[in-house]
């Protein structure tokens, strides 16, 4: 489900194309980002999410894994604000604890994609020739599969569970990073400044990691933020299919799946986890959009 991400390939190259002509400090970008209303909303949503995750044990009114079988599918009330689920557990508490899993999945999966994808893209773009050819073919192969299908296959091989879900979603995200970093590196490495460093006899890897990559940070940061949203969506999709996070962990996608059987009689079991996913992903997308606009000189008013 890496839908919106692909859109950014289009913008990534141009904004990395002028890295040296006007070095835009990250602070300035952040400032202009906060001044935009939408990205501020995104930032607030994410900060709230992190706070909820951090203070889950204070905020949650009930134990998220213990329930009473005699009070299954109770509708929202004073005792259970969002009702109870199929095992009589408090849905609000499960949503609150579930935020931890979502953040964890988002960060670690994207971390995997970021590290491997950036490395592959960087060496591919920087060294070119056969290495570029090889890496790009591997990327082509990965991209020949619809991402969710590839993730399903990987999980099917490695087994279900939180760790493997993160790995699968991470692997699926690698091509995006590799392509974006490669195209940025390609344009940056032609600049006079880098040519000078290479001519000055600096070691290749040193030039790449010290001088080239730092100049590609803008698209990487934007891609990272947007990817977290996508990763959370993908992981929730996997859990919804029963392949991701396993019970009794309160993962949002898995909660949705478990609640499906009662769609007619207890819709709240389905409604709230979906809203939680939607709002979280929305937060990351807003923030990512804001960052992109802030980094991109063209959209500056």
């Amino acid at each position, binding site marked *: 489900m890496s839908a919106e991400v692909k859109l950014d390939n289009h913008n990534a190259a141009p904004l990395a194309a002028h890295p040296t002509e006007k070095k835009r400090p990250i602070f300035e970008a952040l400032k202009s980002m906060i001044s935009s209303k939408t990205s501020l909303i995104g930032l607030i949503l994410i900060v709230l999410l992190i706070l909820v995750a951090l203070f889950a044990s204070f905020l949650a009114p009930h134990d998220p894994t*213990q329930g009473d079988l005699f009070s299954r599918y109770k509708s929202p009330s004073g005792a259970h604000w969002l009702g109870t689920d*199929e*095992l009589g557990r408090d849905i609000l508490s499960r949503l609150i604890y579930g935020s931890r899993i979502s953040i964890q999945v988002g960060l670690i999966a994207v971390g995997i994609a970021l590290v491997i994808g950036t490395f592959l893209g960087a060496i591919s773009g920087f060294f070119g020739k056969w290495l570029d050819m090889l890496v790009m073919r591997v990327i082509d192969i990965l991209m020949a599969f619809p991402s969710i299908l590839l993730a399903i296959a990987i999980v099917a091989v490695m087994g279900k569970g939180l760790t493997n879900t993160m790995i699968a979603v991470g692997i699926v995200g690698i091509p995006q990073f590799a392509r974006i970093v490669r195209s940025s590196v390609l344009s940056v490495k032609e600049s006079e400044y880098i040519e000078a460093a290479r001519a000055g006899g600096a070691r290749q890897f040193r030039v790449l990691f010290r001088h080239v990559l730092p100049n590609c940070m803008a698209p990487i940061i934007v891609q990272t933020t947007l990817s977290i949203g996508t990763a959370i969506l993908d992981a929730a999709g996997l859990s919804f299919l*029963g392949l991701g996070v396993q*019970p009794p962990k309160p993962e949002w996608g898995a909660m949705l799946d*478990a609640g499906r*059987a*009662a769609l*007619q*009689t207890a819709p709240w079991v389905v409604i709230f986890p979906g809203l939680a996913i939607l709002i979280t992903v929305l937060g990351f997308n807003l923030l990512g959009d804001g960052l992109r606009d802030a980094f991109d000189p063209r959209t500056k008013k």
Partner: protein
Amino acid sequence: MKRKQYVMILALIMSLLLIATGCSSGKDAATQDNGNGGTTAADNSKSNGNKTLVFGRGADSVQLDPSKVTDGESMYVTNQIYDTLVRYKQENTEVKPALATDWQTSDDGKVWTFHLRKAVKFHDGTDFNADAVVYNFKRWTKSADFVYYGYMFGASKDNMKGIISDVEAADDYTVKFTLSEPNAPFLQTLAMPPFGIASPTAIKKYGDNYFKHPVGTGPFIFDSWVKDDKITLHKNKEYFGQVADVDKVIFRVIPDNSARFMELQAGTIDVMDGLNPEDMQKVTDDSNLKIVSRPSMNVAYMAMNTSKKGPMSNKKVRQAINMAIDKKKLMSLYQGIGKEAKNPMPPSLWGYNDDVKDYSYNVEEAKKLLAEAGYGDGFTMNLYTMTNPRPYMPQPKLTAEAIQQMLKDVNIKVNIVENDWDTHLAKTEDGEHDAALMGWTGDNGDPDNFLYVLLDKDNAKKGSAGNIAFYKNDQVHDLLKKGQITMDQNDRTEIYKQVQEIVHNDAPWVPIAYTTPPMAVNKKVMDYVPHPTGSEPFNYIKLK
């Protein structure tokens, strides 16, 4: 790009929008008028009547040749198309004449003679006779594909015939079976739908593709099969038994339980299998629908792997776990379709031992037993479960999670390992588990089909275990073996009662529930009588 192209695009947009708006104003999504509305029929229905019964179910049939498959969804359909030598009565597992009108056993129980019904024709017009029966039995022993044959008649690769050493046609309408040893459930077994008699001509004609062109003698004739969508049958007007009231039967695949239920509510299907327990109340509230319960001939249980070193091999631990599980609470997951179980076979079967007193729920007593066994501080165990609902366990995931919560109270930490049904079977048969949720639906209404299959040491071989508790008790084994060759039912009852007592004490299982699986049925469907074995012929059903 030319202007013309834009005009085209615009036109397309407009027409789509028009259709979209026109459509959302429509009222009833599904109309059930038959034949007259549509121009041409995809299926080549040969009957002129218009009483159609639509049966909604969760999965498609695998093959329509019962000698190649084991899944219930295939059997449901083949049970309409084929007849067996004898059939079960409509409401229980007593047998009645079908393709055979009467039969005799020799005194030693080794020779069975069946007299066949005359003037019966297969759907392809060929004659049913003794040669056809012999042909089918010979065919079944030619490949190892027929799982039920191997399993019911003890056939193996080296002995493809199993206990049936010979089948011969004494005359045109008499068949003689010679068994290598007496077999008490033999007649019961012959009534199982897998042993349906197929047309030899059709088998030869279609070869490897026979399973897509089934031809039997049954109350319904095969029309067409759209994979993963529907199978259509029409009635056999020349059926020797009760000719069906419905003209046409459609088996429709709707994998999701909730979606299937919505189709039932909308009136697009008439009967549904696999109702979510959550939706039971909705059925009762709906004036058009009713619940029809399948009589109970099953048991759901948690098997504990007695062959594993550690806590599970300790009888006291197993008894403690029996006490730590609150079955009354578990029953709330069954929404009224389940009864607490205490024996490894259901009370609807003869030989059930009602004198066994179940372990009662008692956390303190369980803790004491665990301490005596040396596990006072608890331990960690895994619990294998399947993702797919089963007739005896409508909510396996939730059942596992509930047990996980309950055992936490006696300091046992449970890790749930969830697999789809096939994988679950493979893994538990390999003995990977500490404990596993499982269940069994009886095949032929004989206690042997529960106790021997599920608890005898013969069936505790890794890789193909029916006895996934790997429970090995020689006394039980001797009793069960004796039960198989004893022909007198009273003597057998005593044997099986004794077995249940021993098993209760050794506690290789936590018996969980006997269920009456519910089917939701439109009220216009009358006289629908579900059979305990899991499928029933539809020729008795009446449509209003």
